[in-house]
């Protein structure tokens, strides 16, 4: 599909590479589907994406994290399609010389992912209802360089 998007179940082993000799810290994050969202019993989710811009945005987040933080490696994989409770929606692995930067980069990347990547979440509830979750608008009025 794309480098950072997968229609298949995610396994952390896909992102874990051998530890780098110059890194003392590896932080991994797995975001899974919870059985409850704002008090409603969740049955499952469906993630869709505008893949060209979503994949580019995820690649940009990885690059920018490597520039902003003292880390050596940051990888992100986001699941698309239908997910049940407990299924992994997003995986992230970060390697850094020291743990502070690894944790900070991981949190920054996840926060930025939520704000900037064209991925859309439809939540299905146990009572049969479903909702497209609202999120962050990507509208900008003018080009950065205009």
């Amino acid at each position, binding site marked *: 599909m794309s480098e950072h998007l997968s229609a298949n179940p995610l396994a952390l082993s896909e992102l874990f590479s051998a530890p780098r000799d110059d890194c003392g810290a590896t932080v991994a994050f797995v*975001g899974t589907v919870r059985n409850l969202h704002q008090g409603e019993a969740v049955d499952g989710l469906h*993630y*869709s*994406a*505008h893949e*060209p*811009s*979503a*994949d*580019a945005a995820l690649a940009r987040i990885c690059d920018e994290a490597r520039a902003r933080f003292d880390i050596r490696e940051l990888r992100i994989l*986001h699941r698309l399609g239908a997910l049940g409770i407990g299924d992994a*929606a*997003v995986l992230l692995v970060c390697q850094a010389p020291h743990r502070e930067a690894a944790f900070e980069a991981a949190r920054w990347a*996840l926060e930025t*992912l*939520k*704000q*900037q*990547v*064209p*991925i*859309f*979440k*439809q939540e299905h509830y146990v009572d049969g209802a479903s909702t*497209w*979750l*609202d*999120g*962050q*608008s*990507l*509208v*900008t*009025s*003018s*080009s950065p360089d*205009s």
Partner: protein
Amino acid sequence: MTVTVEAYGKLIEIIPQPLRLDLPPGRVRDVIAALAEQFPGAAEDWPRVAVARGADILPRDAAIEPGDVLALIPPVGGG
């Protein structure tokens, strides 16, 4: 000119696919204005719908070219 418009996220429930739009040469904001007129049911959403061309999210003042394939990107929320 003619552009193709693809809907994403919740907009797939409002905008029939595929959608061809005929409109005078213009910018992203003109495409959004044309869609808002054609699909007034999503009126409150249009100011928050971004437009992508390929991997790029276009600003409202970006020029549109004939034949462009434009993706409508409602508010995002992955992760």
